[in-house]
């Protein structure tokens, strides 16, 4: 019985999700169809008006006659839609004619544009810039507001684009949206009711039945909705065509009866109505979501989750602020980055909606399938992902080896019994760690200057040839290595020193008595005792070094030609020098995945060593 209750909950929740989603997406699709239809109607009317005004100027009609002409034309093409128009001229910033009440209230036309009417001037200017050498570009639909749609077209005075005309008219209502929704609603509720009747038949399989019911109802509703949308679209296309025919008739009448030779050829034709082509896809995703929600309830997961929260509510209350902050500061940017990596976002298109920037796995494919490691003429392509990955791995391994080696050696020295001034040495040796690493990096960059750096100074003092540090791969790589070695050994030293001091002296005593050599004592007592402290340190140090942006960016800066770049600096350059944000995000996700895989293996390996102890 419980199962049946849960199954029913699941069906209801799933249907609700479906309903809410359809309400939203179907409503949007219906509104889109209506908006585009209206836009197409006024667009063709504006196109006609632009031609009428152009013809009137060619025929030598003055500014005063244009308004009446436009009014008559619009009365013919949109008699029931309360049409209105404006005619703007750019060069003398003039509102030539208008049937907008607010414009007429401000004095006789034509008149100079007022300061508040700057947008009209800017628009006319942009229209002129966008105009083709001859003829007219497609009219621009401005969208709709308060049930009125508006569109503009340029008009030519002789050969020049002189300004623009604007046409606005009341469009058809939004009956389409309502009818679309009622069909979907009906089919959903009907499907659900049918399903609920069948569900109790076999209570043991109720939860599967619930899934089936929701799936069937969704499929049926989706089908109904798509059919209704197709009809709506067809009606919209027909309306656009009818509007164009009326414009054509009016223009012909002007040409024949009115004595105005209006150019009829190339009158704008609305493109086939294609609205939210992704509606089927959206609905499919919606169905999946509804099924997931159904399963969540029907299989009792919802109940269990609720139980857990209720039982441990104090604990959840305590961690809630932390979770909130983590979501805001960590998870959100992270997931945003992941989403970005599936888009082709760049500097130029970042304002577009996310759905238009979506490009699936293209970025990942572009990164991982780029195998042109060696370019023309045998030159290594340093921008290649695998080259950079190789450099990064080499960089990490050598750095950690140097850090651990130097750190351990110094720790052993400092750990010598009876050494005088230990505190001073220790403080001095920790200093490199205490100085911000970008300051250290810049200092080292100066030391490596080919002409004035201290290293070349030293080399020359001993009669050697100066090294051009940043001109070839290995010296350039070495500069980074030296800098990062300097920065990383204090940490390892401190870790080792702490662990060394925790080693029981008795073990060394016992080993000495058994005749173990110093080497044997190091190998069999010191190193195994250091392992628990050293391993975690090495793990984090690998991650740090792998992503050590500052040193590479500031010291070698990837010279020569990006050869010594590591993955993070490369990702930075893609993002902030090439402005390909989506590609850079994918790069970062790849880096994350590499480190994730490394982390999982490392933890497994650590656990294995712990278990063996």
């Amino acid at each position, binding site marked *: 019985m419980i199962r049946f209750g849960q199954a029913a909950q699941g069906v209801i929740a799933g249907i609700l999700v479906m309903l809410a989603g359809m309400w939203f997406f179907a409503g949007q699709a219906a509104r889109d169809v209506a908006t585009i239809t209206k836009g197409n109607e006024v667009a063709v009317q504006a196109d006609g008006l632009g031609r009428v005004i152009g013809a009137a100027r060619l025929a030598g009609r003055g500014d005063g006659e244009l308004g009446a002409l436009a009014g008559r034309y619009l009365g013919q093409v949109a008699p029931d839609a309360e049409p209105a128009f404006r005619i703007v001229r750019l060069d003398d910033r003039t509102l030539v004619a208008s049937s907008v009440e607010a414009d007429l209230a401000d004095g006789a036309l034509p008149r100079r544009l007022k300061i508040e009417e700057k947008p009209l001037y800017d628009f006319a200017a942009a229209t002129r810039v966008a105009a083709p050498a001859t003829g007219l570009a497609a009219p621009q639909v*401005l969208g709709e507001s308060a049930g009125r749609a508006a569109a503009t077209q340029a008009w030519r005075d002789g050969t020049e684009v002189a300004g623009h005309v604007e046409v606005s008219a009341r469009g058809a209502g939004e009956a389409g949206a309502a009818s679309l929704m009622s069909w979907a609603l009906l089919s959903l509720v009907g499907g659900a009711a049918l399903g609920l009747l069948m569900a109790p038949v076999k209570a043991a399989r109720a939860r599967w039945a619930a899934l089936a019911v929701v799936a069937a109802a969704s499929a049926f509703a989706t089908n109904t909705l798509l059919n209704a949308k197709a009809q709506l679209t067809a009606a919209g296309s027909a309306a656009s065509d009818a509007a164009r025919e009326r414009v054509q008739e009016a223009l012909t009448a002007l040409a024949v009866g009115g004595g105005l030779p209006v150019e009829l050829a190339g009158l704008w034709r609305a493109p086939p109505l294609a609205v939210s082509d992704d509606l089927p896809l959206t609905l499919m995703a919606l169905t999946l979501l509804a099924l997931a929600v159904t399963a969540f309830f029907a299989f009792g997961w919802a109940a269990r989750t609720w139980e857990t929260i209720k039982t441990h509510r104090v604990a959840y209350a305590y961690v809630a602020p932390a979770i909130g902050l983590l979501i805001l500061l960590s998870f959100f940017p992270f997931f945003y980055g992941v989403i970005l990596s599936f888009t082709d976002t760049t500097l130029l298109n970042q304002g577009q909606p996310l759905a238009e920037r979506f490009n699936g796995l293209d970025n990942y494919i572009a990164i991982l399938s780029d195998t042109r490691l060696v370019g023309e003429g045998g030159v290594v392509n340093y921008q290649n992902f695998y080259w950079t990955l190789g450099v990064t791995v080499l960089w990490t391994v050598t750095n950690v080896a140097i850090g651990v080696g130097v750190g351990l050696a110094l720790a052993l020295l400092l750990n010598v019994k009876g050494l005088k001034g230990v505190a001073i040495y220790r403080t001095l040796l920790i200093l490199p760690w205490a100085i911000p690493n970008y300051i250290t990096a810049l200092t080292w960059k100066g030391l490596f200057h080919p002409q004035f750096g201290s290293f070349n100074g030293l080399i020359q003092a001993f009669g050697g040839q100066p090294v051009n540090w940043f001109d070839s791969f290995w010296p350039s790589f070495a500069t980074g290595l030296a800098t990062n070695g300097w920065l990383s050994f204090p940490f390892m030293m401190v870790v080792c020193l702490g662990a060394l001091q925790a080693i029981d002296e008795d073990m060394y005593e016992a080993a000495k008595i058994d005749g173990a050599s110093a080497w044997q004592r190091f190998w069999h007592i010191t190193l195994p005792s250091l392992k628990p402290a050293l391993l975690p340190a090495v793990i984090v140090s690998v991650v740090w070094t792998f992503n050590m942006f500052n040193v590479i960016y500031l010291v070698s800066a990837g*010279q020569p030609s990006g050869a010594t770049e590591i993955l993070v600096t490369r990702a930075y350059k893609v993002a902030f020098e090439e402005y390909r944000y989506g590609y850079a995000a994918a790069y970062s996700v790849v880096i994350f995945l590499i480190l994730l895989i490394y982390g999982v293996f490392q933890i497994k390996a650590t656990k294995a060593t712990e278990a063996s102890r």
Partner: protein
Amino acid sequence: MTTRRAFASGLAALPLFPALASCADESQAGTPGDLIVWHGYRGREKAALELVAKTWNDRLQPGGRRVRTVAVPADAMPDKLSASVPRGRGPDVFIFSHDRLGGWVEAGETVEPVGFFFEDADRARFLPGMLEAMTYKDTLYALPLNYKSIALIYNKALVPTPPATTGELVQMAKGLTDQARGRFGLAYAYDDYFFHAALQNGFGGGVFGPDGVPILDAPGNVQAGELLQRWKEVDGILPRDPTASLITNLFNAGRAAMVFTGPWFLGEVAPGIDYGVAVLPGLSEAGGAPMRPWLSVEAVFLAAGKPRPKDAYDFAAFLTGAEGGAIMAREGGQLPAAAGAYADPAVAADPVVAAFRAQAANGVAMPNIPNMTLVWSPADKAIKRIARSEATPQAALVDLQREVTGAIEQLRASAGRRN
């Protein structure tokens, strides 16, 4: 599609629709607060701008809007602008260099065109070439405030009269160079594309052709690279790895007789050095054609979609006018773009200003089209290869051309794919 969407969304709120016209009037009627001006200035320039704002506020007519200046770090300003202005927040006016203009226009809803307020007679108010930098796709978007370009700065103790041609320059520099002792006739950031461009433009090369297509491997650019290699390898008058701090140190120590650098350098010159500023020498290798350095023009922009843009424009016109320009020059050490500012006796008498003004006359405004942002980094890389003689200028520039063309195609492909 981008531009079309920008239009539609930008205009939807404005009194274009007859139905909306009355509502829009109401929104304009409310008194907006102070005019907020964002700038990236510090020190003297900041004080000078505040003085201009104070002068403006003191003369305010009743109903006028007070100007309030807000310092925003220059490197953070573009991000802050694109995050705030399209959402109706941010400043009314901002001061920034002109090379971002194209990007802002293409992104939409960031900068306001000012052609409506600008009369043809206003053209004469500015030095020639400045307004071109403010124009993108035949539309004027800002008023020019000041300009920066590199020029020849020389140590008068070592160079009594500055060279007029590169032939003279090399001859003089050879006599003043002693590589072993770290003395150089000429030092400048020759491996930095911004500086090298003076040679490239001088030889008739450049970045983009008239149609906006990259011409980075043009013959003029190759010749410029060859001249640089000759200076460095054959004539041996240049130091290695010329970072900005190295050049400053060399010049201040009297070890570099001449440097190519901009007005920003003057603040760093040691007090003991008697320096002069002169126009970059003409290129003997190009029949005496002048070197043509990049001109970076700082402009006063109006943020898009703000109420009462005329107020903002009036202040911008005052700031970039003769009086504002003179204050910015006198108090802030700027090189004003306003022709009238040079009538100010203190500005007119300054030989440094005169030299930079003469230099600006043959400068080239940095391209303000968005694709320029894709050029800097690869171009720098190519110039470094040339400077180190890693590759012939021809080879390095052909690679550069390929790289930049590819990057533009990739950026355009993703921006235009669904258009």
